[in-house]
């Protein structure tokens, strides 16, 4: 296939007092896991909503499956898990799933059968006749995840799918996402958890303040980030001596010290051997000294310029009118 699953062409969305998405272009090829990364309030959710034709961009074009129709016209082929989760609290689990599948054009009988199969598979089959608000939060998330997939979509859009999941459920979800991709489904997910994205995504796009900072295949982004990156592990104490050496601006450009180990970016033409020699001379016991690709986390922080966990309140979502 050569057509893109989703293509955004210079889309811009302005809300009353701020620019949510600014001249953003990206292309999601079919059959990949595509990560849309950015700090909170970067415009991820707004971008996704425009992809889905829930809101319209002020300017620019959205194209899905390479055709003219909007995402809503193709809604039978698209599954969407919104960032803020919610179901009809007073409905029974199976009824909710059947209804949401009907909204995607699946007929009731088929929807029922598929819903039962999925509920069993995710281990909540015996809850099918219970009311949604009898379920725990984790189970509700599973139900909502099932609702996203019931109609066998070829494009699945997950907005912060791992937010609020415990490790076990996150694992289950990750397995399903990989399985989808292996089955040829395009998965677009947004997240600000870099470790997840790094493990999962074939391609990604990092945005901040509504603008694209970088996009492309993960490996390319890492290569393109340039510089020499080291991971240095400390054996026991000695971190204090190392910290002094890392302050040497002739060798080290940036350091991210985690206590037990540090990620170090060297000055462009510095020799890693110089740093190793200095560390050994200073008597720092090393457990590890490795030339590495920069972590996605590091790239992200370099690009965004601040910690991804930093919250900027009131920006995520459609915002205020």
């Amino acid at each position, binding site marked *: 296939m050569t057509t893109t699953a989703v293509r955004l062409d210079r889309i811009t969305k302005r809300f009353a007092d701020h620019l949510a998405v600014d001249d953003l272009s990206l292309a999601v090829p079919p059959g990949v896991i595509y990560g849309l990364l950015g700090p909170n309030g970067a415009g991820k959710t707004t971008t996704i909503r425009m992809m889905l034709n829930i809101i319209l961009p002020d300017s620019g074009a959205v194209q899905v499956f390479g055709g003219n129709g909007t995402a809503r016209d193709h809604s039978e082929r698209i599954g969407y898990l919104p960032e803020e989760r919610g179901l009809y609290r*007073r409905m029974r689990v199976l009824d909710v799933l059947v209804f949401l599948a009907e909204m995607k054009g699946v007929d009731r009988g088929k929807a029922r059968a598929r819903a039962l199969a999925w509920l069993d598979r995710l281990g909540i089959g015996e809850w099918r006749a219970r009311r949604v608000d009898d379920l725990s939060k984790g189970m509700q998330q599973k139900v909502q995840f099932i609702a996203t997939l019931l109609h066998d979509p070829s494009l699945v859009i997950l907005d912060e799918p791992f937010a609020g999941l415990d490790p076990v459920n996150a694992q289950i979800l990750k397995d399903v996402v990989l399985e989808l991709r292996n089955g040829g489904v395009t998965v677009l997910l947004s997240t600000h958890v870099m470790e997840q994205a790094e493990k999962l995504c074939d391609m990604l796009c990092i945005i901040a303040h509504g603008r694209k900072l970088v996009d492309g295949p993960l490996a390319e982004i890492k290569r393109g980030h340039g510089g020499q990156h080291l991971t240095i592990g400390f054996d026991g104490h000695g971190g204090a001596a190392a910290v002094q050496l890392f302050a040497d601006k002739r060798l080290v450009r940036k350091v991210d010290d985690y206590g037990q180990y540090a990620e170090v970016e060297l000055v462009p033409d510095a020799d890693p051997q110089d740093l190793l020699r200095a560390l050994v001379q200073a008597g720092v016991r090393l457990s590890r000294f490795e030339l590495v690709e920069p972590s996605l986390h590091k790239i992200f922080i370099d690009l965004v310029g601040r910690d991804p966990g930093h919250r900027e309140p009131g920006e995520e979502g459609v915002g205020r009118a």
Partner: protein
Amino acid sequence: MRKVWAVIRREFVERVRRKGFWFSAILGPVFFAAVFFLPALFASSGGTKRIVVVDDAAAAFGERVTTALNAGPALRASRAVAGDGVLDSLMREVGAKRLDGVLILPDDIVTTGRAEYRSSNVSSLRDIQTLESTLSGLVTAARLERAGVDPGLLTRARQGITLATTKISGSQATGESSAQSFSLAYFMAVILYMAILMYGVNVKSSVLEEKTSRIVEVLVSSIHPFPLLLGKVLGVGAVSLFQFLIWGVAAKGLLGMRAALGGHARGFDSPIELFQVPHVSAPTFAVFLAYFIGGFFLYSAMFAAVGAMSSSEQEAQQAQQPIVYVLVVAFLSMFALLNDPGSALAVTLSLIPFTSPIAMPVRWAAGDLPATELWASLALLAIAIVVVTWVAARIYRVGILMTGKRPNLRELVRWVRAA
């Protein structure tokens, strides 16, 4: 469209499954039963009252009163001659509940027309009415006799007349009496008011639930907001019609039972006479249904907009106040309308689309009205529905995705004008 159908079915099934639906489905007929039965029960519940007529031994008037009272079903009267201590001992009897009341007839009752009734219960309208009408009949007769009028002539002169009232609609007798018209108008107004309010609020909470749970995002990525809103309104509307069906069947059954029970209540000017079983003609039913459906659509559109612009039930409660006030005004105006269905106020209220869903059926039931007015009112209502729904749908479309504080009027205008 299949998706709209799914939305309708979900609204209908989920609502009908709830306890609340059956609660009001059963409570409605209980309410009707209360209105229909209670007056009859109260009126006939007293049983026979034992009273003593006290008068001067010389006057034959007391004898006549006693006889006349005993001719009726409600009172058992005996006569006592006034004397020292007689009244006091009778009062003690009343105090001990061995006697229900004492009717004191002064010597000059025929001239002054004054008498006194002492009872532990002087609020029994039925008893007082019986006493009054009996006394006034006899006093009148006595006065005429004194003036030399032949008692035979008197009897013939007192031959009563019966005024049968029949409502004429489009020069055809409808078989509805004025009392029936009144009760019909009254009930139509009550039901229209309750149903429009109740189901309008249902639409609001349905919108609000989808908004606050954010399901609406999934929905509007699959279906356009307008068909979604339409399905919602139709689904809730279907629930209301289903509710009416239950009420209708129950009411028919109850009215049948009441007819059997009605025998007890005959012969009194009790309130039950005002609440006769209305004969609901086909045109009346059609008018009722047309205005219910019209009013429901008009108000649910507004309630949907309220739900969409609010982000919590409390906010929505506040935001819906203006709408509820309009509806209350429409309902309260019913009493003015019933007094004079042809007044300028009545005509105006039955033409304004926001009050016409209650005002027009009331006027229709209360009396004949020009067909042109009915059509004009319906046409205005239809136009209002289109306009209000258009505006509400646009508010809905923007509002369901909004979070944060409730928009002010200027922001609302911007939502409506947004492409």
